């Protein structure tokens, strides 16, 4: 049953992928798109658009959507907090600050370098949020860690705007990162990030059973012979790589990591062996669809995709907060 559902999700992903390639400012007929891949004709403008912009956009959206959703699912398991996701906890903002710093002040252009800035920033932010959230009496209570994350987000985004104010001539070039975008990069530029992110994704899939044990509580996990610290550290590392990689390529794209795992849990329950692959596939489809929406909402201009996801995600977040929440 669950396997069948996963195939259905794959079908959805395929449909959104195709839609993302076909629909845009110029709508391409299916035949043209097919021939762009089968017998590429460099003189046809439509085929060039598909091979250069549309394809890279769709692939990048898939990668970012899947990474953020899986990172969010792991985060919710790790903190046992239904409101957890890398963007709400300031990890994305931390990564972005370091990336902007590297790009604007140290003039690194290649993603192969900027990616490491993103990982560093994500790590710093993750450590800080756990430090902040675990101080005081009611350590790591959902509300406290969410507030700590919000404080960190505010901190890093004010640093980022500080950098941009000081260095105004780069403002335009960096703005797409802040709004979030899957079209700011070509496939070639994003290429160095893929292997790292894919490796982290595969690792996350393998970690499913261990995560299941962990969610039953630290003590039980220990009693069952799990090396709790090692599993947690590994999860943390995967989260950092997935979130950092996404930010380095696409900037701040929020709420995917919050919404998708919730959606998936309502579909398949609490088994992380299924939650992780479902999250990856549905996250990718959701971001593809958001990207398609971003092209049409304010024609002829394009809306930054991070704003589309915020418009979908923030009401969702408010709804969870309003309803009160059970443990993830």
């Amino acid at each position, binding site marked *: 049953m669950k396997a069948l559902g996963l195939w259905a999700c794959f079908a959805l992903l395929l449909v959104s992928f195709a839609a993302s390639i076909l629909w845009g400012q110029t709508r391409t007929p299916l035949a043209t798109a097919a021939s762009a891949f089968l017998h590429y004709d460099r003189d046809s403008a439509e085929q060039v658009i598909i091979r250069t912009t549309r394809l890279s956009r769709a692939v990048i959206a898939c990668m970012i959507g899947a990474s953020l959703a899986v990172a969010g699912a792991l985060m919710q398991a790790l903190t046992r907090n239904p*409101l957890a996701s890398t963007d*709400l906890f300031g990890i994305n903002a931390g990564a972005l600050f370091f990336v902007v710093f590297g790009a604007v002040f140290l003039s690194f252009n290649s993603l192969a370098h900027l990616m490491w800035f993103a990982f560093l920033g994500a790590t710093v932010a993750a450590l*800080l949020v756990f*430090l*902040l959230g675990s*101080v*005081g*009496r009611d350590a790591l209570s959902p*509300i*406290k860690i*969410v*507030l*700590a994350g*919000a*404080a960190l987000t*505010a*901190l890093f*985004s*004010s*640093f980022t*705007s*500080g950098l*941009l*104010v*000081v260095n*105004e001539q780069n*403002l*335009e070039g960096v*703005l*797409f990162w*802040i*709004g979030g975008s899957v079209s700011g990069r070509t496939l070639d530029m994003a290429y160095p990030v893929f292997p790292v992110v894919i490796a982290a994704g595969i690792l996350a899939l393998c970690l499913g059973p261990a995560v299941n044990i962990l969610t039953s509580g630290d003590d039980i996990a220990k009693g069952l012979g799990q090396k709790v610290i090692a599993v947690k550290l590994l999860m943390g590392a995967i989260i950092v790589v997935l979130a950092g990689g996404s930010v380095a390529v696409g900037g701040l794209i*929020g*709420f995917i990591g919050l919404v998708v795992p919730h959606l998936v849990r309502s579909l398949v329950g609490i088994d992380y062996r299924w939650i992780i692959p479902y999250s990856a596939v549905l996250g990718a489809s959701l971001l593809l669809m958001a990207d398609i929406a971003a092209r049409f909402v*304010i024609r002829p*201009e394009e*809306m*930054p995709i*991070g*704003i589309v996801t*915020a*418009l979908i*995600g*923030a*009401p969702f*977040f*408010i709804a969870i*907060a*309003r309803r*009160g929440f059970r443990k993830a």
Partner: protein
Amino acid sequence: MRKHTVLRSRSESFSFIVENRTIRMLLILLGLTALLFLTGLSVGSTFIHPIAVMKHLIGTNGEEHAFVIGTLRLPRMVLSMLAGMALGVAGLILQGIVRNPLASPDIVGITGGASAAAVYVITFHSEISLKWVPLAAISGACVVSLLMYALARNNGVTPIRLVLIGIGIQSLTSAAVTLMIVLSPTYSTSEAYIWLTGSVYGANWNHVMSLLPWVVIFVPLTFVLSRKLNVQELGDGVALGLGAKVQRNRFALLLISVALAGSAVAFAGAIGFVGLMAPHISRMLAGRSFGSLVPVTALIGGMIVFMADTAARTLFLPLDLPAGVFVSGIGAPFFIYLLYRNRHQ
């Protein structure tokens, strides 16, 4: 038991306890503020000797420095001071209501609402003159906090819901701000950005006079209401047991906080972290009673923005940086240290 001074009206309609230690602390802070003020007036791209500054202030020095001091430096410094006071007290109130030391206007969306409205005016209606920006900012803050309150309302408002919904709204407003900035032409982009970082550059006496009433009315009002805040901090159960009208007080206090934060942001831009930091520092200095915390927080908040602005306009001459960069640059690491230090409270 510490020595207290109790101020109480005959009908006991208001009363508060101020520790004597706090009064001493206040005097020291006032002295420190005066000293900083003098320093701030004399440093800058042209250095004016402190004695000359003093002579100017008492009016015995004629018109020699009238332009630099009276027109350029003084209004800017007074404005930064007032904005800091308002933001600090706004944060103090929020932390009291929410009972969490991490709450502040810039985190729960009040500043965000103000920013969205202000950026809207800056980017799309710059032709109708920027004097509407403050009004827009204040209304934005009001609309957003009413929305936040309405959404959090479900059989009364619990602090947790209030804060979480605030965070949700904050991300909506920041999405709106980003959208407007991306759509706007470049010249207003950087203007909007400077506003978002928080800057008192180009302040004049009109700004000061417009912000002054807000601070003069609402900071003392908070002081008068401080015992309601004391009760709020005990938690809903205890507060109800003590006969407090918890929900009504919470709403009134929230409104005051919005008025303070909104007006400060309106004139000084979205300066962050003051509302987060100032209450913490004052708690280290003046204990936990809100009667003492309100005046101390006001002074500390004022000093933070003031010092940040002085540093921002003098350290990188001839560059005049937005004060907000310095507030978060110095303030944020300090804030993390504070939280770490107070971890067992």
